């Protein structure tokens, strides 16, 4: 007897789960209902041009280090990505990632770079493409180099501290030019820069630190995502009140009209009383 309520509860639970599961499936919606993702490929391995294969198809031939390719518009799904020496068969790939997951409706950077140990790696970063307030710019800095933890400074002040390989720092700033450099974390030992970055309004500027500290091939690669601008909050362009009359200054006329109507009514009244 004590089992019955439990079973009932279990059955109820199962039904609820099914219902929720169904709802969940609908909420997360199948892949085809989602917009394609924008995938940009960034080459941050010094000294080695590559062919980029996506699902066995050569997509970016002879891709040079320091360059940025794309964006490719890819439906959500799993992708096999391979990098070969230019002209080599896909079987002898330098770097291969199978079943790389691309979510729907995202903006992704796929970065070929060296990891902290100096080995080639392929790392996906999801890019923040949220709209910026008017006048603002977005700076994203990514550590994709065979180098220890670093601080990224703007105008001599650290803005992102202790960034390690595969990690990023991100900030929305006032648009304009900043002088940026990269130092070993917690020190003034400069490993990169300074470089003047013109951070445009309504744009995300993504700066990758690439290469190898040991081989002295450290460099910067940048990618820009435009179109993140918003309109200003308003256009306040008058506080005097003199222009109020430009649209509504007819009061004297209305007055004259009213006097006219009164006169006419008075005359009419006189006419009527006069006839009697």
């Amino acid at each position, binding site marked *: 007897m004590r089992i019955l309520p439990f079973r009932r509860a279990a059955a109820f639970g199962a039904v609820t789960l099914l219902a929720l599961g169904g709802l969940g499936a609908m909420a997360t919606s199948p892949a085809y209902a989602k917009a394609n993702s924008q995938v940009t490929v960034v080459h941050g391995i010094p000294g080695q041009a590559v062919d980029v294969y996506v699902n066995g198809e050569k997509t970016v031939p002879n*891709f040079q280090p320091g360059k940025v390719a794309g964006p490719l518009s890819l439906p959500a799904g799993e992708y096999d990505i391979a990098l070969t020496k230019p002209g080599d068969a896909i079987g002898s790939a330098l770097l291969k990632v199978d079943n790389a997951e691309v979510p729907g409706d995202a903006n992704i950077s796929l970065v070929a770079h060296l990891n902290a140990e100096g080995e080639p790696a392929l790392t996906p970063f999801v890019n923040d493409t949220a709209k910026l307030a*008017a006048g603002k710019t977005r700076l994203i800095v990514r550590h994709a180099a065979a180098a220890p933890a670093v601080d990224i400074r703007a105008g001599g002040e650290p803005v992102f501290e202790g960034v390690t390989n595969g990690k990023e720092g991100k900030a929305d700033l006032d648009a304009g030019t900043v002088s940026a450099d990269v130092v070993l974390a917690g020190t003034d030992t400069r490993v990169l820069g300074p470089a003047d970055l013109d951070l445009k309004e309504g744009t995300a500027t993504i700066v990758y630190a690439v290469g190898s500290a040991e081989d002295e091939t450290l460099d910067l690669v940048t990618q820009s995502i435009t179109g993140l601008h918003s309109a200003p909050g308003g256009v306040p*362009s*008058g506080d005097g009140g003199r222009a109020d009359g430009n649209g509504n200054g007819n009061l004297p006329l209305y007055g004259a009209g009213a006097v006219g109507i009164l006169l006419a009514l008075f*005359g009419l009244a006189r006419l009527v009383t006069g006839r009697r």
Partner: protein
Amino acid sequence: MNSHRGTPRTRPGRALTLVLLGLALAVTAGTVACQSQPADDFGAPAVTTPASSPPPPTAAAAAVAIQDGAPPKSTAADVPARLRIPALDLDATVDAVGIDAATGEFAVPPSVDRVGWYRYGPGFSAKAGSIVVAGHVDSAAEGKGAFFRLGSLEAGDSVTLTGPGGKERVFEVIARERYRKTAIPLDKYFARDGTARLTLITCGGPFDPKTRHYRDNVVITAAARG
């Protein structure tokens, strides 16, 4: 008796004059008042691409665009210098302005005889998008502004923008709209895509002396001529 009879006779005459005079006054005043009503909106800004629509997909995987990863360089300034509107007898200096950090609003130049070009948006020689210039209708401190009579521009009026090196670009008024500030579609007027156009913005409508704000914005859209 005679005088008694005469009075009623002359009375209708005077009364009739009064009626006619009154009617004439009412009709004239009414007509003038109607004619001087705030000008109606006309036209619609030509925007071929809605501001929110994504750029058309590029020719697929055929050729993937390759960009150099060099740090972005500052581009040459494309700043308008003067704005001329013959119909308003206006020739104003244009300042490059951005956003008022305190309010997040358009930083209209405080000096009322100057107008401000939105330096984050399309510039003087833009091939696409809305070049925005805003100016004061008036200010409490300085009186009437450069854009005091902006709302009286008519379709076909010309607006000339002078750019770097004295180059001129002529625009033709195609739309005049008035919106409550709470409802104005600013995204449309600050769009950076669509056909090249010049958008002039000022204040208008009833003035609230308590908040010292106008209720509306007046927006003129002018299409690039040639």
